[in-house]
């Protein structure tokens, strides 16, 4: 079976700074995939290239067997790649429900019931009418995921959805991600919180200075000397 997402030799340069240097990774349909690495290692740049926020300088990105690296972000979303943002970017002038209507109308099914269903799933049902700039930090993180889900993605990229949350809140978000995965959605998780990545991922890669330094199961990754040196600070 062809992998859902195939990233091959992708590089990205910011005026002489190599943010990504020939990164290649395949992600299978239905996989729970972890992406770790120190700050500035290129994690967010990689998913920006995958989601279309940035254009990769070289290499190829294929989704569902088709090249997508030339497509604008909105078309990638419509093909099934949705993401949340590290720093929540709610549509602040809109209610929580309206926030979901945007992807629902532009990339999803357009059915209002579905928005309510997603809000229930995310535990935001009672906040549907709340203005999104009045949400708490954890609610904003959930809104990020809920809005991504409203586009009906096949691949969900969660960019540090748990940063700054308490351990209870982390388990809450983890549980949501597990549920979505059980429903058939492939999930890429970028996270600094190791216990969450360890618990969630079936496979992990560690980036450092724009290169993949290690790939494997969570246990293998943690034990890897390169990862310990670059990231875990051993």
């Amino acid at each position, binding site marked *: 079976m062809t992998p859902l997402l195939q990233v091959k030799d992708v590089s990205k340069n910011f005026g002489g700074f190599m943010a990504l240097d020939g990164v290649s990774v395949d992600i299978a349909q239905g996989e729970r995939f972890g992406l770790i690495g120190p700050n500035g290692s290129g994690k967010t740049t990689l998913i920006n290239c995958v*989601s*279309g*926020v940035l254009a990769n300088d070289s290499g190829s990105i294929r989704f569902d067997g088709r090249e997508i690296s030339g497509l*604008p*972000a*909105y078309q990638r*979303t*419509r093909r099934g790649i*949705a*993401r949340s*943002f590290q720093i929540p*970017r*709610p*549509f*602040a*002038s*809109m209610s929580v429900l*309206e926030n979901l*209507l*945007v*992807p629902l*109308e*532009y*990339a*999803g099914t357009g059915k209002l019931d579905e928005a309510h269903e997603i809000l229930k799933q995310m535990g935001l049902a009672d906040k549907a009418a709340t203005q999104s700039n009045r949400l708490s930090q954890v609610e904003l993180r959930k809104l990020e995921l809920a*809005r991504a889900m*409203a*586009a009906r993605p096949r691949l969900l990229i969660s960019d540090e959805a748990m940063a700054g949350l308490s351990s209870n809140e982390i388990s809450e978000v983890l549980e949501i991600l597990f549920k979505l995965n059980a429903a058939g959605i492939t999930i890429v998780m970028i996270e600094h919180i190791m216990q969450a990545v360890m618990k969630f991922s079936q496979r992990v890669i560690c980036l450092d200075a724009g290169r993949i330094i290690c790939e494997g199961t969570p246990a293998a990754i943690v034990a890897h000397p390169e990862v310990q040196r670059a990231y875990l600070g051993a």
Partner: protein
Amino acid sequence: MKRFLIGALAVLALAASMPLIFHNEYFFFAGYVVLQFIVLATAWNILGGYAGYVNFGSGAFFAVGAYTAVALYKAFALPLGLQILAGAAASGLLGFGVGMLTLRLRGIFFSIATIAVAIVLETVVLNWHYVGGAKGLPIMRPVETPFFASHTVWLFFVMAALAVLAVGAARYIETSWIGRGLRAIRDNEVAAECSGVPTLKLKLGAATLSGALMGAAGAPYAQYLSFIEPASTFSLNYAVNALAMPIIGGMGHWIGPVIGAVLLGSVQQIVTVTISSEINVLVVGVMLVVFVVAAPEGILGLFRKLFPSRKS
């Protein structure tokens, strides 16, 4: 929708029956200006209010409409309806062109380009002798206007129709998926794009429509004054009013620019007649500062604060 249609027809009927109430021609002369500002403010708000892309060159879009109409009138003696269509098409194209060049980038570039376009186009027209250049061109009004008491009354009615059309278009956009997409762009463009919103297409569409409506508002201008010259047609006054009126009225709702235009437009007319035409510019400036500081969401925002249960 039905209620809005009935309202629109009522406004048009009211406009048509005005000659029965007012016999002083000046009422229509002043009313035309207020209606013209409703069109300009509403057009500005489609891009500036909904999508957050500020146009500082509304005067240029207005003037392109006016001069397109004049050039075609002089060359082919086109009737007013076709002049308006041509003026709208030309300004719409201008909006699309400026948008193509600058809306690929986020932020301030579009706004800067609109200022530049206004200056460049005014210079072009100053040197375009066919339409009178710097010294201007008198326009003969048609001698007879069937069904209407005078040509001014007829133009008043035409502008009322354009205002209804503009407000109708703005209202349709605002309440549809297009409006939600534009608001998403204003709130956070990257997130909008990642939510499946084709941001460039929507922005270009809004810039084109906004420009076209401004051009339509400008097309009858030469007939209204029986004269056209660049300085007043490209006047900064239009640019300032087109953005001040939605800001003062409230940008989030289609009625906001209408409230702003009626209020500011009337006050300016009254001040021009009773005090002086210089003071009316001051009025806009002072009101703009007061509203930006004290009520950034405009009159509509104030209204919502006072009556929080009412959804307007």
